[in-house]
């Protein structure tokens, strides 16, 4: 079922195996359940604040200043990392790299588990990663690690993440930062 990994030997596509699809507009996905966005944001913040070595994986869509939204989001990602006491490890290049990536400083969609294993990351947020590469990586992460994955997608979401938040633009990121601050205060972190 669509739950925390490791799920097994092979990458795990929940859309095929569990028939779990992306949430409709206005909703979020929490494992295999559609919930209100605020509920999912609280659970996401809680996972990041309570699990070991929380890390944000920003992708090219927030790493490059290709639009006004991207510039805003890049600043918001830094603020979010501070609020969540999280590291930032970028997924800045989707190309396979020979002989392998340096898991200290980067994550690559072709073997995301290496970075997660190396840094013992138990919770992460994908943001600004193009949907295909996020989905490829998320299936591998669920199969091979016990990392709690959260996707903040500006489009339709990623059902392969344990929590997926769709239509995430600067306004929604501000909302998430505020919720994260509240959860942090509640947890006394």
């Amino acid at each position, binding site marked *: 079922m669509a739950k925390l990994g490791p799920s097994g030997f092979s990458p795990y596509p929940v859309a095929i195996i569990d028939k779990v699809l992306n949430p409709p507009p206005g909703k979020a996905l929490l494992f295999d359940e559609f919930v209100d966005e605020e509920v999912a944001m609280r659970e996401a913040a809680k996972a990041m604040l309570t699990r070991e070595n929380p890390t944000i994986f920003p992708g090219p869509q927030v790493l490059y200043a290709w639009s006004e939204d991207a510039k805003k989001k890049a600043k918001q990602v830094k603020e979010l990392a501070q609020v969540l006491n999280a590291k930032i490890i970028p997924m800045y290049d989707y190309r*396979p790299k020979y002989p392998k990536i340096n898991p200290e400083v980067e994550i690559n969609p072709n073997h995301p588990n290496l970075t997660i294993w190396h840094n013992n990351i138990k919770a992460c947020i994908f943001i600004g990663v193009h949907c295909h590469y996020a989905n490829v990586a998320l299936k591998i992460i669920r199969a091979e690690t016990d990392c709690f994955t959260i996707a903040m997608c500006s489009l339709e979401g990623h059902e392969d993440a344990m929590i997926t938040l769709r239509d995430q633009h600067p306004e929604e990121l501000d909302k998430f930062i505020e919720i994260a601050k509240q959860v942090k205060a509640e947890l006394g972190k």
Partner: protein
Amino acid sequence: MSNLTTSEVKVNKSGQRIVSPDYLLFEAPREKFFMTGSEAVKEAVKRASVDASVSYPITPQSEAAHLIGELWVEGYVGVYFRGESEFGVMSEVAGCALAGARTITTTSGPGTLRAFENFPMWAGTRIPVQLVLMARGVNAPLSIQPDNLEVGFLLDTGCMIWYAENAQDLFDMILAGFVVAEKPAVHVPLITVVDGFFVSHTREAIMIPPDDIALPPYDPTKAPMPVIDLEVPPGRFLRDPFVMKSNYISYATHASWQFEVRAAIERSRPYAKHYLRGLIEEFGNPEAEIVFVAAGTAASQAKEAVRMLKDEEGIEAKVVKLKTLRPFPYEELRASVKNAKYIFVPEFNVVGWMEREITKWLYGYSNAKIIGAPRVAGGMTMPAEVIVKEVLNYIKVR
């Protein structure tokens, strides 16, 4: 350079007013015309804000490809050219789509096989190309007559596959197809199948909306992979090479990538249900114990057989027409055959790929006897009388 976003643009490059897909497909007034399936392709493309089309003149779709060329002359298609071969066409189509163009082409029969390597490549590179496949026989011996064997070959390429029964279906599916295929979470190619000659070359009544309205243009910035743009990051250097040596990636990546393409097809279900008004269509007595499951013109012939069985033999039957094969409408099919005792699968090929599909998806869900008949091929027709006879013979011996 314009700073307008897609939602602010009111007309497309051809000067047609941009309307919502729902308006174009469901609400716009329609007028009746009498045209061939190939002409229906032209009329759909004319309203689809198509950026590019590449053609190769294989029978029976040559007329459709030729007519798309006429649209280019008239200013409705941005780029149009002829490829050197079928393989060349399908590769060039990929190039157009990778650069962010809404792209369509057509093929059939052996040309499909010559181009075959490209179809899983299209799916793996997540390009929402549309291929109108006018199904025809696969040699040898060479046939340019109706037969849908090649559709069975295409089922697991990672492309969505929809099956039009007639020119009306084809017109509507081409327009709906772009909309569904270009959804960011879907974004895989669509093969829109129609039976060659039976539909491509025969005229029938078809209802179409005015030609001064069109679909919104494709927005490649929402693609799940960066569109190739050599000037603007992040697209500049982020595309994977098409051949990924296994020592550069984990083997799991290739597996995950393939799963992701199939997951994308699953994500198309709700959109396809909306724009096709369901993934199946039923005809006849909903409670009937005799059910025909078919697609394309086999469904048309089965409908006539249902009428004949009722009028001439007093036997109730129904047709379950499959509009999509990928995604396969297994939930709808299982629900629709719950009363069935006999499921006949009429097909235009010798191998019975549709029967295999039905058998697989109903395994453990239906106690009905599945009969892969009648089966014709190589250009043969499938008279409704033959279908009726098949049913009567089967029932009689039991």
